[in-house]
């Protein structure tokens, strides 16, 4: 078969798929919830189990099983799967060493590598096709009732109300597309998915960010002791005004005032440093959440515009974004660890 004919056939096939998909596979955009949905019937104490928690546990199990499979028959000269996993871990270890230096790498590596692999697998888990269709059929009222009252409800009262409200009546033509009737569900019911990528749940990302920022403080204290906190509350500059200057002479009135004002600036900067530490929590969790959640919503919207073909390149893009976000979480955590363990002696000697 000549090459031109092959290309022509491929193009015709793709166009036919697009048209067929648009004719027969059209669907309405399902309701998008920013919060992770609670699973019906799964309650421990007063805590409702959300689908992102279930998925997080599943991701953990996947990682543990992979690790066990890779290390089951350890060989000195690795081959096959063990070789592949060793390549991944070794690459990551070398990168960690080039950023953090060889002294701290053994302590940092376990945490940052765990974060990298966990975030990577959970980002990619949400991209599995058909995952959103696995779940329980629930009526809108029941879904609304499943929302446990938390601090979030102040924000999301309106969502619950909207979910509980009856759907707007559709015109006769729209109903032929069976607007909100899901496969295997009664009309008027929606699917509560069993799985949801933990990265698309803000609480899960906040937990990761807390681990990252918390361990930064721990490593800072381990490396520098109590001096670490001087970074956040620096009054040494102000106190320096009342001590003799570098030549051992008492300062004059103007010198004292100038040094004191410089000390005030240093104090203000150190307060800013403390605020930055808190802002890291926000930026860590929002960055991961925003990227992954927006990616999945974008795939949904594209699939509702054109069910076949169009989503394929964007799934590739989302695979890349998932990898990059996992890498960024890893690199930023590592960079903050490295900064926290670095000594600040050199900074305090300026004039």
């Amino acid at each position, binding site marked *: 078969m000549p090459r031109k004919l092959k290309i022509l056939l491929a193009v015709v096939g793709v166009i036919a798929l697009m048209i067929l998909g648009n004719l027969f596979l059209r669907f309405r955009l399902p309701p*998008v*919830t*920013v919060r992770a949905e609670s699973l019906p019937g799964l309650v421990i104490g007063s805590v409702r189990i959300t689908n992102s928690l279930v998925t997080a546990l599943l991701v953990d199990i996947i990682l543990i099983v992979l690790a066990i499979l890779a290390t089951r028959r350890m060989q000195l000269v690795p081959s096959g799967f063990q070789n592949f996993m060793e390549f991944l871990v070794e690459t990551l270890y070398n*990168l960690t060493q*080039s*950023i953090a230096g060889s002294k701290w790498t053994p302590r940092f590596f376990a945490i940052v590598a765990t974060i990298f692999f966990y975030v990577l697998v959970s980002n990619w888990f949400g991209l599995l096709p058909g995952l959103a269709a696995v779940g329980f059929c629930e009526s809108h009222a029941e879904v609304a009732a499943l929302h446990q009252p938390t601090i979030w409800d102040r*924000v*999301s009262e*309106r*969502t619950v109300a909207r979910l509980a409200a009856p759907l707007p009546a559709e015109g006769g033509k729209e109903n032929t597309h069976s607007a909100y009737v899901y496969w295997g569900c009664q009309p008027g019911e929606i699917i509560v998915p069993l799985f949801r990528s933990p990265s698309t749940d803000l609480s899960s990302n906040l937990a990761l960010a807390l681990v990252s920022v918390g361990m930064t403080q721990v490593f800072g204290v381990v490396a520098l002791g109590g001096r670490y906190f001087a970074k956040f509350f620096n009054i040494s500059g102000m106190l320096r005004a009342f001590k003799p200057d570098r030549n051992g002479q008492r300062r004059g009135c103007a010198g004292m005032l100038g040094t004191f004002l410089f000390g005030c600036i240093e104090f203000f900067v150190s307060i800013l440093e403390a605020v930055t530490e808190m802002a890291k929590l926000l*930026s860590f969790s*929002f*960055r991961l*959440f*925003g*990227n992954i*959640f*927006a990616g999945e*919503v974008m795939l949904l919207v594209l699939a509702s515009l054109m069910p076949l073909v169009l989503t394929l390149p964007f799934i590739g893009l989302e695979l890349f974004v998932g990898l*990059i976000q996992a*890498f*960024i979480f890893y*690199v*930023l955590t590592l*960079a903050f660890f490295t900064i926290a363990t670095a000594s600040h002696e050199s900074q305090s000697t300026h004039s």
Partner: protein
Amino acid sequence: MEPTTFKLLAAGLAIGLGALGPGIGIGIVALGALSAIGRNPEAASQVQTNMFIGIAFAEAVAIYALVVALILLFVV
């Protein structure tokens, strides 16, 4: 006009205007990194790592705008 109109308008404006600055910022970061790699190709891997960190910081601002837009669309 209905409140929904303003909601949609606000969400569109939030992400549209919010993406302007980070877009320029990421462009500048990539410009710097690419010219650095062009001058010193041996340092490419190190420059790339730092470039990704810089891009992540610039992109975080766009993500804040995106989260605001998502909240406007799906929560409020």
